[in-house]
């Protein structure tokens, strides 16, 4: 099977994609509605928490962070998919990424926005969040640049703004298509504005290519640094179970992993909702699945490395935390993480599952669950079982406000993401055209070569 049909007409591509922006299946609205409802739950929780205090989330001393930070890492991790597909695979000339990188980039942008929300939700004094923004206040105070949280803020700001720019720049030719082919109305005005007068001239294309490549080059180390810094939030601290050298690599692998599985999930949803069967083809899904499988195995390996290095370290406190994860009150979740993260992906190794959409949908959801559990299992056990035995606390579990907020974050993300897919082309038209064009050229060349051989 082919990634994409070479004989697909370019006008057809325009038409199909533009149609997605106007008339998706009904399911789209159902999803949007439920996403909004979930988001409202979170707004309610936040209002309650903001008014009453963080205590309502059932956090305490020592459980100072809980699900907010776990879910924050989860969303940050998910954002790495976009960079992987658009930047890394772009540099590697893997052209099968072309129909799916746009939504992957959107995934990056919106999951970062969701993650950013958790930073805010987490703050005890949200109304003073600007104290950690780097500007000198009226007394000449700056934030503390030594804090990994500040690096986080800086890295996420850089990553978010770069991702948005990357997404936008990559979309300009498509915006021009929208401008040219959509009916009059506010959207046309919007696209006219956003497409910056793009006409596809050779000069524009030439600079576009260089720019796109350069930003891709910036984005790759940036993405790695972002999740390394999130890992540094933990690794730079002194706590048992966190102070682990392999954390940055482990986090980055986990990030790519969760990003890939999220792509599979969204791939399947978008394919159905926007009728993209022609572009988001099963062979592309298969490639994504194989990539996911490979990353899952890397993650499993790094997980094992982390456990082994703790186990052989003579650091009794860290060992205790590990034992606590395996057999303590967190054991069901920890084993759930191992099952979802390391066992379930083994299914992806079987060819017959690699293109089985229902199975993949379920598997990708399980992988995501596993990755969420992974983040929780990084954060919570160290709090419950830290250096100081007197303050060990195995009885404190996240309250409904925390769960509500986690639930709502999925709603918020889905809302933004689905909104984006309706307003902007979620399949890159010009890149699909390029793909089709190059495939055709390639086909022609090989046919010529074959004839020559005869």
């Amino acid at each position: 099977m082919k990634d994409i049909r070479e004989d697909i007409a370019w006008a057809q591509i325009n038409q199909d994609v533009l149609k997605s922006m106007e008339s998706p299946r009904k399911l789209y609205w159902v999803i949007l509605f439920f996403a909004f409802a979930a988001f409202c739950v979170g707004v309610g929780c936040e209002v309650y928490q903001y008014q009453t205090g963080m205590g309502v989330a059932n956090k305490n001393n020592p459980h100072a962070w809980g699900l907010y930070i776990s879910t924050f890492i989860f969303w940050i991790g998910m954002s790495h998919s976009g960079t992987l597909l658009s930047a890394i695979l772009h540099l590697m000339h893997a052209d099968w990424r072309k129909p799916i990188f746009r939504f992957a980039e959107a995934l990056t942008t919106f999951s970062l926005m969701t993650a950013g929300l958790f930073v805010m939700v987490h703050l005890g004094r949200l109304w003073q969040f600007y104290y950690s923004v780097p500007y000198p206040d009226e007394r000449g105070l700056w934030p503390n640049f030594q804090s990994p949280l500040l690096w986080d803020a800086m890295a996420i700001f850089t990553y978010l703004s770069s991702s948005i720019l990357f997404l936008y720049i990559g979309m300009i030719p498509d915006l021009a298509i929208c401008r040219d082919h959509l009916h009059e109305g506010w959207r046309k005005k919007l696209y006219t504005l956003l497409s910056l007068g793009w006409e596809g001239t050779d000069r524009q294309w030439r600079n576009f290519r260089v720019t796109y490549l350069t930003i891709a080059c910036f984005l790759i180390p940036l993405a790695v640094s972002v999740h390394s810094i999130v890992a540094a939030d933990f690794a730079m601290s002194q706590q048992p179970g966190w102070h682990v050298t392999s954390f940055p690599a482990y986090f980055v692998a986990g990030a790519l992993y969760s990003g890939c599985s999220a792509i599979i999930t969204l791939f399947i949803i978008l394919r159905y909702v926007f009728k993209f069967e022609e572009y988001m083809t099963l062979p592309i899904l298969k490639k994504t699945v194989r990539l996911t499988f490979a990353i899952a195995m890397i993650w499993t390996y790094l997980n094992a490395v982390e456990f082994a290095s703790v186990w052989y370290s003579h650091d009794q406190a860290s060992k205790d935390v590990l034992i606590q994860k395996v057999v303590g009150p967190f054991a069901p979740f920890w084993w759930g993480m191992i099952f979802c993260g390391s066992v379930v992906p083994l299914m992806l190794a079987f060819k017959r599952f690699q293109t089985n959409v229902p199975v993949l949908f379920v598997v990708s959801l399980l992988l995501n669950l596993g990755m969420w559990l992974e983040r929780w299992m990084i954060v919570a056990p160290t709090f419950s079982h830290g250096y100081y035995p007197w303050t060990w606390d195995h009885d404190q579990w996240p309250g409904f406000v925390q769960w509500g907020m986690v639930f709502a974050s999925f709603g918020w993300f889905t809302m933004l993401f689905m909104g984006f897919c309706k307003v902007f082309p979620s399949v890159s038209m010009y890149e699909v055209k390029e793909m089709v064009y190059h495939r055709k050229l390639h086909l022609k060349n090989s046919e010529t070569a074959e004839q020559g051989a005869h």
Partner: protein
Amino acid sequence: MIDSGLDRRDFLKVLGWGGAAAALSGCGNTSIEDGKETVVSYVEAADYAIPGIGVYYNSTCAQCDAGCSINGRVREGRVLKLEGNPASAINRGKTCGLGQAGVQHHYNPDRVREPMLRKGDKFETITWDKAYALIAEKLNGAKGEEVAFLSGGVSGHLKVLLGNYLASIGCKNHYVYEALAPAVARAANKKAYGIEMPRFNINKAKVVLSFGADFLGSWVSPVHFSQQYAQFRKGVDGQRGVLIQVESKMTLTGANADRWVPVRPGTEGILALGIINELGMASGDIAAAVKGYDRIRVSKETGVPPGQIDKIAALLKLRSPSLVLAGSAAEGYAHGSQNAAAINLLNHVLGNVGKTIEASSSVTFTQMAPAKGNTAALKSLNDGLAAGKYKVLFSYAANPVFTAPGALKFKDNLAKADFKVSFAHYLDETALQADLVLPLDSALEDWNTQVPEYMAEGAQINIQQPLMEKLHANTRGMGDILLALVKQRRAEEYKSFDDYYAYLRAAMLQNKGALGGGGADDDTFWNDTLTKGIVKLAGSSGALSGKASVVGLTLPAPSAADAQYPLHLIPGVTASLRDGRHANQPWLQESPDPLTTIVWDSWVEIHPKKAAELGIKEGDILEVTSRSGSIKAQAYLFPGIHPDAISVPLGRGHDALGRYAKGYGANPFQILDAVFDQETGELAMHETRVKVSKTGQCVIVVKDEGSAGGKQMGRKIAVSMSTDEVDLSKEV
């Protein structure tokens, strides 16, 4: 400022007049925000009230009877914090947690604020004049012997005035009741040493062998003993003092012992005699009396291994002087006095009397000497009430409805008195049963003198003075009330005293020569006395007169197992809650019990082995049933308790008192059997037998201890070394 033409004086005036204008336009007090705050003009503030600067006043802590002197920090007319007064020989500038919480007694939101008269099931507010008239009326209708006055321990001029008042109404029934007083010890000490409360020099002892005396927690004068204990640990001649604690339930003192010896409940006396026998230092009839107590028998009866008895005896022999203390845990039995006698005998045998046990000074004015509370008084009162002897009952500083053993049915008997007057800080369980409730000033706004029962060095009279203005307009000092009442009968004698302050001042000045103010003029002496907060007296030092004697010393065999109620109930006395009168002070509720770290609730201490046997785990709600009733509380697995015993702390389980006390925990007083010490008639608090059963409910125990329990997981947090590894002489 200058531009606007407003100078500083005008500015202050504006502030002052602002308040005044509001007062003129409104009515009564100057108030803003619907009376939430009062504008006080500092322009006319008293000299000492400098905004931002704290002033300190000496007074006396009234949270327990130990008589610690305190030093209150007052700022802007509000008392903020209590510290110890360094000049006092009793506490030398130190305080306990209970004492610290004194301010919460004063500022307590649940204090009674108005005199209240019962109308059916409810109280209604009346005026003081009406209240006094009502008392006079009721007393006119009753003969002297039909009136009873129940009080806690009182001393000083309040006691004098109370005595005079009772005499004026012909009442001879003054019951001085303290639920947790060392009354058996007093009697036993009197017999053994000739003095009820001799001076115990813990700091001079090289070994302290304590039979259930929680002198660091709640026994007699804990702050004083704690300081002695610190010196004792530093050691005499560089030799660190050794503390051995024998008891069935670990107390705070037991937790600090070098060796904590769990003993079968009630066999403390047997162990004491066994040690005397093992020492082999006694002669004559003592030797003969203890002869039968060989180590094997004693070990069998007490459950203490023979080797342990050997070691204790050897140590006592080796290191002298030592000090043996008999505490309430050893005395709370029907044979409590016998136990105490056996234990005190040990001091004689070891030759400690006169060295670590010395005669104490006492105040020569016997009229002011403390009226010592006990539980025998409760029994007499209860009997009288049951017989319907009393028409009028006054109660002050005692809450017998809460603290009387359930078996006495005190609440029912109380109802037989026609007219009950309660002088109360809170609407406690007893006040709720009263017909007339009269609100008292807190100890931080009242005048008094206090004579401590346990004199640390020389004799002293403590001065209690107001640290700030009254918080509530309609509360009265107990002295003022008594003065008003006594004036009803003897107006002529007391007419020159407008209030209790005047009475007190006159009384002190009258005798200033004896109080060390010989040469000074009245005002100087008075101000000096108030400044110091303590009057140190020459006092009289009685001689120790008791002799070692075994006459009448017979110890019963250890009690047989009770099939129906197999466990001993040990009512736990905690340092902060004691008999529960201060349970409405939130700091005390939230201050973890030192041993279990539990807060805000009661618990049942049970040994882990026993718990395993009964299938009990931490947090199970247990029903503890005695012959007299049952209570429910959460289980806490506690290694520091004899497996044959359980312990439930006293002080919680109020169904009145206030928002911080009501509904928290269970009250073990309710299930105590009415068993009394055969000699003194004191309530034998440890004689109650119980059984426990699981109710099936389970809760998370609210405590400070984390999920690791009391384990350090080898992390070297609280480190310990033994005496042979340490060289204390190098220390500063």
